[in-house]
């Protein structure tokens, strides 16, 4: 194992530098389709395996090959997982963007680059490390057509030497990445990584201050993206019907689910599937199938993003009114319309809360980590069946598609909840039932499943006006009664959705409210505000809509509450405005970011400081 001694060094900018340990961000600029993903994941994993908290974020274009893409890895000894705006360590592999990428760097950053790009002449305040990639790749990769892929692993080797990554961990990461079946490919890449490392060790002199040092902050953790976590959540929630239509950034959720279902949900004796997955012709069909599968008793789901949600609007209104259970994943992206399909946002909050025509309200869950994705998906399926209504699980591209370090998922403790379903036996005992009657005072009627062997089991489901017995009606009292019961059902739901996570600070007069992936930036911003401005903040992380009483209490006990969200118009705040009394609304402040990048702490901090007048 090699450990590099780094002493304070005269850098090229002439400033002596203390080493900066386990607190930096690496940005790797490549061309989409050049196969850099493996090399980037290996770097991320090597840091993780050295016990250093990391997160990886992929900024990719809406394109298959040829456009610029940036992968950033943040190593943070303090465990900060949000995006850092500043890049400390640039690997410039893309000729097209290299100059701009270099010009954007803060003084003192390091740049590993492909030698022919001649970046060194651009600035004198950076640490430049030119690498002759073409010369290095030829000997380790005799097959010319593979060189484009393998040369990425050379930068892994160079970066490993510069940052003092432990090479055995690089190798472990590689093996993990390629799996047992691709051992040959792993060896080829390992050769390239070693060549890069050896060349750097013999040729370069380290002048930048960034160093990775083994610590013990990742033991027992896993690395996973939110979409895969949702997929696992769905499998362990007992999903039986999955319908979908491909759309970035949600496609990988169902693709990951298909992979897991194929492995773990076939009958061991017959080999037959205990699930159905249908790739529908569009989102109209996928949600139609999911809702009617729920109607017929399946644990049903579909997954999409904003444009798909728009197409599902009519059906989801029917789902609300005809009371059909299904879980709808919305992995949000920047809109409207196609917007920025590969950039992240929280822009569907208001739309989904009230989706469809007429009076409609829909529950939404907001997980903020892969672990929470896993457990909340189970809750979402249970809630959908208990309340017989479509339930949204809201994530976004940042949470869904990026790699997160997270605690392992706990096996679900609660048995699967199937809600108020009457069997033939129940009907015998009861002598019949009225589908939309509020028997228990909670607004939730009893239902039967088609195929129930009883003469009193059947009822007729429709979007048209219906009375308690599910009969067609245009009477105003029947219509109003039913709408009032649906409103009451929604009120009941407040006590059954996941409550917020509240972190109160003594003496804090201001509070934060945020959902989902904004959590990471908000928590880091709270530290910045305390450390840099002596501003104490409390924090309520909402986990669901409908809002619960805790949110109102939180607003009451603070002078000002900053609602942080990733959209232009303050949708979450707008939703509160619809429900809350004036004195609460008056306390709300809005922090919004809508540029499509994952939210960073500095943006939040700067805005709060500005509004606080400091």
């Amino acid at each position, binding site marked *: 194992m090699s450990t590099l001694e780094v002493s304070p060094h005269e850098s090229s900018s002439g400033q002596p530098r203390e080493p900066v340990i386990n607190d930096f961000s690496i940005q790797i600029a490549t061309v989409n389709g050049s196969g850099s993903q493996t090399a980037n994941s290996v770097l991320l994993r090597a840091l993780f395996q050295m016990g250093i908290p990391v997160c990886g974020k992929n900024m990719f274009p809406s394109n298959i090959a040829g456009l610029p893409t940036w992968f950033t890895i943040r190593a943070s000894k303090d465990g900060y997982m949000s995006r850092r705006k500043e890049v400390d360590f640039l690997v410039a592999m893309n000729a097209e963007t290299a100059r701009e990428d270099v010009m954007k760097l803060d003084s003192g950053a390091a740049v590993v680059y492909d030698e022919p790009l001649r970046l060194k002449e651009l600035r004198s305040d950076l640490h430049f490390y030119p690498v002759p990639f073409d010369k290095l790749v030829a000997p380790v990769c005799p097959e010319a057509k593979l060189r484009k892929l393998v040369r990425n692993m050379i930068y892994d080797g160079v970066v490993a030497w510069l940052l003092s990554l432990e090479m055995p961990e690089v190798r472990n990461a590689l093996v993990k990445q390629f799996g047992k079946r691709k051992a040959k490919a792993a060896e080829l890449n390992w050769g390239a990584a070693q060549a890069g490392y050896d060349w750097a060790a013999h040729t370069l002199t380290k002048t930048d201050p960034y160093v990775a040092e083994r610590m013990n902050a990742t033991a027992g953790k896993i690395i996973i993206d939110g979409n895969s976590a949702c997929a696992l959540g769905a499998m362990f929630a007992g999903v039986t019907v999955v319908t979908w239509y491909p759309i970035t950034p949600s496609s990988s959720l169902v693709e990951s689910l298909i992979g897991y279902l194929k492995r*773990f*949900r076939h009958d061991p004796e017959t080999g*037959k*599937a205990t*699930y159905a997955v249908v790739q529908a012709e569009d989102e109209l069909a996928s949600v*139609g199938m999911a809702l009617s*599968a729920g109607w017929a008793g399946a644990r049903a789901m579909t997954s999409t993003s904003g444009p798909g949600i728009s197409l599902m609007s009519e059906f989801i209104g029917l789902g609300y009114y005809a009371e059909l259970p299904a879980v709808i994943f919305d992995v949000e992206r920047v809109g409207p319309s196609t917007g920025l399909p590969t950039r992240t946002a929280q822009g569907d909050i208001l739309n989904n809360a009230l989706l469809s025509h007429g009076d409609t309200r829909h529950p939404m869950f907001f997980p903020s980590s892969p672990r929470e994705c896993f457990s909340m998906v189970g809750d979402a399926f249970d809630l959908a069946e208990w309340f017989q209504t479509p339930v949204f699980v809201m994530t976004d591209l940042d949470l869904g598609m990026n790699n997160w370090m997270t605690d392992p998922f706990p096996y679900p403790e609660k048995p699967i909840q199937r809600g108020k379903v009457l069997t033939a036996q129940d009907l015998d005992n009861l002598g019949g039932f009225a589908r939309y009657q509020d028997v228990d005072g909670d607004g939730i009627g009893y239902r039967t499943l088609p195929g129930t062997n009883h003469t009193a089991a059947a009822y007729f489901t429709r979007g048209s006006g219906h009375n308690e017995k599910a009969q067609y009606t245009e009477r105003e009292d029947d219509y109003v009664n039913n709408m009032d019961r649906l409103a009451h059902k929604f009120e009941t739901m407040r006590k059954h959705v996941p409550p917020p996570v509240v972190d109160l600070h003594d003496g804090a007069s201001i509070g934060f409210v945020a959902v989902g992936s904004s959590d990471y930036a908000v928590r880091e911003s709270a530290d910045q505000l305390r450390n840099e401005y002596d501003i104490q903040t409390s924090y309520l992380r909402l986990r669901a809509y409908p809002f619960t009483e805790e949110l109102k209490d939180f607003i009451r006990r603070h002078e000002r509450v900053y609602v942080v969200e990733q959209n232009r118009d303050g949708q979450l705040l707008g939703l509160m405005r619809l429900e809350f009394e004036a004195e609460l609304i008056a306390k709300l402040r809005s922090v919004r970011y809508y540029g499509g990048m994952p939210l960073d702490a500095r943006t939040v901090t700067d805005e709060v400081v500005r509004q606080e007048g400091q």
Partner: protein
Amino acid sequence: MSATITPPPKKVNRIGLEVLSYKGSKTTLCAGCGHNSISERVVECFYELGVEPWKVAKFSGIGCSSKSPAYFLGQSHGFNSVHGRMPSVATGAILANRNLLGLGVTGDGDTASIGIGQFMHMVRRNVPLIYIIEDNGVYGLTKGQFSATADVGSTQKSGAPNELPPFDCCALALKWGATFVARSFSGDKKQLQTLLKAAIAHQGLSVIDVVSPCVTFNDHDGSTKSYSYVKDHEETLHELDFVPFYQDISVEIPEGEVRDIELHDGSHLRIRKLDRDFDPTNRLSALAALEEAESNGEVLTGVLYVNTSRPTLLDVLNLVDEPLATLPESRIRPPSAVLDEVMEELR
């Protein structure tokens, strides 16, 4: 002294149910509407074959036709859904419970205009479902606009002619993979009954396009979907007979004149040749016959195509035999060892 009057024994079918068990609520469609005749045929067929009503699930979209599932099989679950999206609704429910006998009722507006995409994809998937198109060439519920099955030159009540060519839903179903395709006329009681019974026995998608005149908006001179036009221009392909699986079929079949097709449940469809040779297992000849009939202004009725070998969507998905909807937790939630295994891979 009072005389004891013994009521006559109630007439029941082979599972002991009266016809009342197969009826629905009172129709709200216009008197004389072809759709009401189709509803009556549905009641008769399910009653006569002794299908358990609770096994049936009814589906429809939006329109006059789509209201009709409320008017038959009151002891079956029904779902009157969204305009043009009934195929997805039927598909989802059947995925959830493969034991359901799905019966979809739709119209020409619901299927051929707003729903053409879902219709085509349902056909492509061979969803096991009886799909009846009550085809009258107009939107009745919105007062008489042309639909996409109206023939060129056919006129509205006001006299305005239709200028765009029609979709032939049978031709589309044939081209893209439906496994039972038929056309009939709401006024042809016997043929429609036989077709419906065969569709009940068939495993796979049955598309039955039934010309069903709209007495209010499209039954005038100049319409090609009026009672009189269809009566004058109906070209019947063959005579049909249906022998259910529970009946003896030892009757000798005269060679060359009657073709016998065994359906999935062991029932038989017997097709007696009329004046033309027509092979209902040949998709291309069925398409050619439809083309020819269209150019002659004829309404070709009968079984256009039967395929008893193509796998259904449920076969393709390799689903377990039991309904997914009612699988116990032990079969749908993998054990904790599986979660441990996956977590280990992610460390």
